[in-house]
């Protein structure tokens, strides 16, 4: 009897331990990553600031109504009101046409963020697609896509963007489209590299043996495993798009006045500085803070997804 009871208890203990381990494993990759991310204070603060910025900017009409007396971003409120110092009515003063700098900053943020997100959306779609194809199929497909990436990387981006801007005089959305189709290469490289290491793993082989089609393997088995890297790259894409737009608009080849953007508010910075210092400093600080927050969030995500990377900086 006892001989029979003995093994029973061990198996029950074993299965208990097993189920415990299962439970912790069942938390899953995303859940554990999220928990790690939530422990990272710097990233959380960055995320908080970024969300507040996004909400304030997305609801610019409401925000400007509440905090900035509902001034228009493009039309001056009254005549002879240029370069007013900060006051309770104009929190950051007025610009060379007598427009409220704070309100212009808010609406300019709409353009910057909209461009950032749109560019990232386009670049990620293109980049992930090509990266999956190149990494999964390899050989000829990989060669062709690689050559394409090489050519695109060699094109002097800012110069070509200036040229395109002269030729097409784009609106913000067409500008975002142009930026999107010219900045996907980094995404492709990252995704391709990861897919190369994934495609020979056992579970992909298993799917293949089961008779899954290529498209099913890519979409159901490979894509979910590159999503973490895509999320991190997305952050860098957004930040870089914001920086690129700001630079282009500053040069006068991006978003055109009277529409405000953080970049084009700085175009006349050197002439206007002595009259309205805040008009020069504020847009630059907004760009820097936004980009800094996004970088920190992306860094935090990368560390959360793969803690081994943490020390590599």
């Amino acid at each position, binding site marked *: 009897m006892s001989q029979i009871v003995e093994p029973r208890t061990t198996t029950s203990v074993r299965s208990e331990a097993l189920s415990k381990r299962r439970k912790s494993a069942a938390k899953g990759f995303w859940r554990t990553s999220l928990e790690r991310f939530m422990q990272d204070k710097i990233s959380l603060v960055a995320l908080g600031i970024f969300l507040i910025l996004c909400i304030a900017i997305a609801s610019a009409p409401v925000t400007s109504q509440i905090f900035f007396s509902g001034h228009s971003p493009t039309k001056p409120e009254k005549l002879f009101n240029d370069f007013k110092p900060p006051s309770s009515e104009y929190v950051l003063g007025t610009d060379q046409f007598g427009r409220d700098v704070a309100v212009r900053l808010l609406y300019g943020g709409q353009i910057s963020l909209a461009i950032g997100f749109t560019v990232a959306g386009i670049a990620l779609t293109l980049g992930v697609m090509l990266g999956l194809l190149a990494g999964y199929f390899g050989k000829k497909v990989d060669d062709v896509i690689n050559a394409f990436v*090489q*050519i695109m*990387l*060699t*094109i*002097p*981006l*800012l*110069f*070509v963007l*200036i*040229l*395109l801007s*002269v*030729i097409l005089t784009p609106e913000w959305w067409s500008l975002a489209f142009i930026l999107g189709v010219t900045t996907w290469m980094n995404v492709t490289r990252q995704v391709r590299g990861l897919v190369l290491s994934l495609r020979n793993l056992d579970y992909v082989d298993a799917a293949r043996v089961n008779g899954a089609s290529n498209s099913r393997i890519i979409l159901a088995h490979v894509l979910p495993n590159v999503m973490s890297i895509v999320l991190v790259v997305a952050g860098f894409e957004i*930040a870089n798009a914001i*920086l690129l737009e*700001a*630079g282009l608009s*500053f*040069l006068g*080849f991006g978003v055109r006045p009277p529409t405000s953007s953080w970049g084009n508010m*700085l175009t006349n*910075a*050197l002439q206007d*500085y002595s009259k309205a*210092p805040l008009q*020069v*400093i504020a847009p*630059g600080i907004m*760009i*820097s*803070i936004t*980009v*800094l927050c996004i*970088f*920190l969030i992306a*860094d935090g995500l990368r560390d959360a997804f793969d803690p081994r990377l943490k*020390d*590599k*900086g």
Partner: protein
Amino acid sequence: MRRFVIRRILQSLGLLLAIMLISFTLMHLAPGGPLGFLAEDPRISESVKEGIAKRLGLKDPLPVQFATWIWGVVRLDLGISFVEKRPVFDMVRDAAVNTLWLTLGGTLIGFVGIPIGVYAARHRGKLIDNIIRVFTVVFNSIPHWFLGLLIIIGVANIANDSGFKLLPLGQMYTIGQDGIINRLWHLILPSFLVSLTYIIVFSRFARSQTLDVLNQDYVRTANAKGLPSSQVSRRHVLRNSLIPLITIMGGLLPGLFAGLVLTERVLSWPGMGTLFLGAAGQRDYPTLMGVLLFISFLTIFGNLIADLCYGLVDPRVRYD
């Protein structure tokens, strides 16, 4: 090795041709074509425009025009600027020399990043490492041209208040006082701005490379057999961790040129960026093409040379 070099050179030439084709196509996509800038001037009659177009060969079929242009490029003839009426090659050459000053100054200062990165790696996780990290993240987020604006404004304010000119506010030299010292003085701020990119990239790269190498078995062996740590770091760590830096430098070129456009604009530096911006504003088609070509050429051959050097300094790299 020789086969690899030949193949890479051919590849580079092909790449250059592809980019030339793209920029050529872009030019002809513009409304009004390369002569679009004439359309805005009402004083020029149609027949004159026809004459100009014919003289510049713009009536030829596009492939012929492209071939003519390439043939010109091979003979280092990039055409005549519509606006300046000077050979584009001369304009590009002059601007390139000015930009070279910036890039050289920036790179030299940028090398400061390497010891910073190595130092951070050796003190990993300590306070100094974190401070360096914060600095690189912050300076990576501030657009460098905006930083340039702020510095200029600050310097101008000091000059206004106390009459003390800390730094010049732009240009390459003070008119009437051209000299080596005056030029170096004008070079300080722009090369600092350019160097920021290098410092950030170099220090990050040097840090992660050094960390990699520090964990290698041969470093442990060297330490274990009692080599003084200065010798370990010089002979075993530094040498091996800095090799890949060469490839990084090749890859940095295009981004650097993009940054130069903005820096040159902020500091009114008469380099490639300023030349291109001016030409873009006036739709000076031959100049735009010339600058684009020159920069693509530099980028492609920068990468090529980096690739070849990689094999020279690292015997483990095999070409096949």
